């Protein structure tokens, strides 16, 4: 037997296999593509709606609104001031509209990721079986190169916003699922026993004890999800998502150094703003742990 060459499948067989799978998938796309697009259409409506609000309103109102939101989350003047300066600079260098598109995109992706992630995390914390099944799926979602799952997404939805959102959510949802699961599992057993001893139902324990105690951890998940959504902005621009990613892509293709750096820095600025704001919020949720009896 020859151990130098791997005993691989015949070339013809491999080609036939590929063609068979590709044809089947193309068939599936033709048959159900339209239906799937219909199902996911509301995402497009929501995204366009938010984008329009951010772009069509007077910039000063948008700036004030964002500053107010950051204040509500962080209660820190420093972070709010940093936000205002960063956004003014972004506007001055002509990146206002692209930045608004990116913020809208990240907002929608985060919303969807939270809506999927928290219930999934709860499910995993509740049933070990679900945990066993979902963990490998999450591992795959986080390690599979995003270009690989862009292929079927683009085949079904074509180029545009919706496939962009789907690709970003696939990439950004695992941390919130994992951290929701972790947060609930970390609730001390004696506290759960106390809840049970007082006759709490499963739902009451979840709502009154497990979720509130897991919330700081869940917020860390939301923070990670936002960061990962922003990281995907450039990749998403390859399938037609407009925003700060597109000029970066253009800069790569044409070797426009300054254009690339400016838009890159704008992405970094937004990332830092959202990171600091959500972290400050997470910290505020843990107030009850801070004041320790001396």
């Amino acid at each position: 037997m020859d151990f130098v060459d791997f005993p691989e499948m015949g070339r013809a067989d491999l080609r036939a296999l590929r063609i068979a799978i590709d044809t089947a998938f193309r068939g599936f796309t033709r048959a159900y593509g339209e239906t799937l697009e219909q199902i996911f259409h509301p995402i497009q409506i929501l995204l366009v709606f938010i984008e329009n609000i951010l772009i069509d309103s007077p910039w000063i109102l948008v700036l004030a609104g964002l500053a107010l939101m950051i204040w509500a989350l962080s209660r820190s003047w420093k972070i709010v001031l940093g936000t205002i300066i960063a956004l003014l600079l972004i506007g001055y260098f002509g990146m206002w509209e692209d930045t608004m598109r990116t913020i809208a995109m990240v907002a929608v992706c985060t919303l969807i990721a939270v809506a999927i992630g928290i219930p999934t995390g709860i499910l995993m914390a509740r049933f070990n079986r679900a945990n066993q099944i979902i963990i490998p799926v999450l591992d795959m979602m986080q390690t599979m190169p995003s270009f690989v799952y862009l292929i079927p997404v683009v085949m079904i939805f074509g180029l545009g916003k919706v496939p962009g959102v789907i690709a970003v959510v696939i990439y950004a949802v695992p941390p919130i699922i994992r951290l929701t699961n972790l947060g609930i599992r970390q609730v001390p057993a004696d506290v759960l026993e106390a809840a049970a001893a007082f006759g709490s139902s499963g739902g009451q324990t979840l709502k009154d004890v497990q979720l509130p105690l897991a919330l700081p951890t869940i917020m860390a998940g939301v923070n990670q999800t936002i960061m990962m959504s922003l990281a995907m902005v450039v990749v998403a621009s390859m399938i037609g998502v407009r925003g700060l990613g597109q000029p970066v892509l253009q800069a790569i293709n044409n070797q426009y150094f300054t254009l690339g750096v400016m838009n890159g820095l704008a992405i970094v600025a937004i990332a830092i703003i959202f990171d600091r704001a959500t972290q400050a919020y997470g910290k505020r949720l843990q107030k009850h742990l801070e004041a320790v009896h001396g």
Partner: protein
Amino acid sequence: MDETTEATHDIDIRNLYKIFGPNAAAHIDNVKAGMTKEELNAKHNHVLGLENINLTIPAGRIQVVMGLSGSGKSTLIRHINRLIDPTSGEVVFDKQDVVKMSPTELREFRRSKTAMVFQKFALFPHRTVLENTVYGLKIRGVSDKECQERARRWISRVGLEGFEDNYPNQLSGGMQQRVGLARALTNDPEILLMDEAFSALDPLIRTDMQSVLLGLQAELRKTIVFITHDLDEALRLGDKIAILRDGRIIQQGTGEQIVLRPADDYISSFVHDVKRGNVITVRTITRKGQRADTPITLPYDTLLEEAARAMTNAEVNRANVTGTDGTHLGMITLSKTVAEMIAPDTSDDDTADVMTA
């Protein structure tokens, strides 16, 4: 004080067995037929947690269950509200077997009849003192207004007025356990389950909390099941004491019965260091029918220490003892009183009226 529910039903624990392990039910017949804990562990890798527990917990009294760690006392108390399911046996309260309750019935039973206080407090860290205290009522759907009224009453009753809006982390251990007690009492349960409730507190605070509990109990008359590993605590609190070892009850009775007649060497070694004068009453050393010429007259349930003090203060060495109805019962001597306080008296005194366990 506003109205609270007095306990009116005993808790009857009958033939209770608990085996820990994945296949517990398969081994229950062997254990009932006499397989020992060691054999079960060696041959089948299952742990015998409780073995044939029979205990009647009287309504409105404090039942102490005492034992060292690993004796099964925490397992036993968790069978009363079925936080742990038994392998076999019954726990009857008000003609209902807790073991056979459906999940809904069990939840209702836990909500309305029982409340629990934990060794490590187990307060909800994200809720303030007030929010912790209302928890039991809130999940029953009691209105906010009533929750708050009842909770505030108990918070002030346990001495935490002014701390309603603090988080548990901001309080000392003793204060946290007061919150635990207020949280339990706000539920107005008939049964109060206290799992080593004071064990995590330092000695002074512990004595303080025991006084708080005894003060409340004098008024409330709840059925209290109190778990402890501390004999002094058991003797101070318990109307009845059951001693648990290796999952079996090896003796039960009043504190006095246990101190006077320890069932085996194991219990003797425990009882050895007890301040006997605080546990034993004069009835055990009364010479029946004899009368002394002395100004001191004591009721039969006077503790030896008090009797000795009364005689010493009056500078006499004899005292008359009266019975339940106040009639003359007999007399005691100071020397016998002191002797009985110091060590187990094995001298032959055929006139002493020793109670039988």
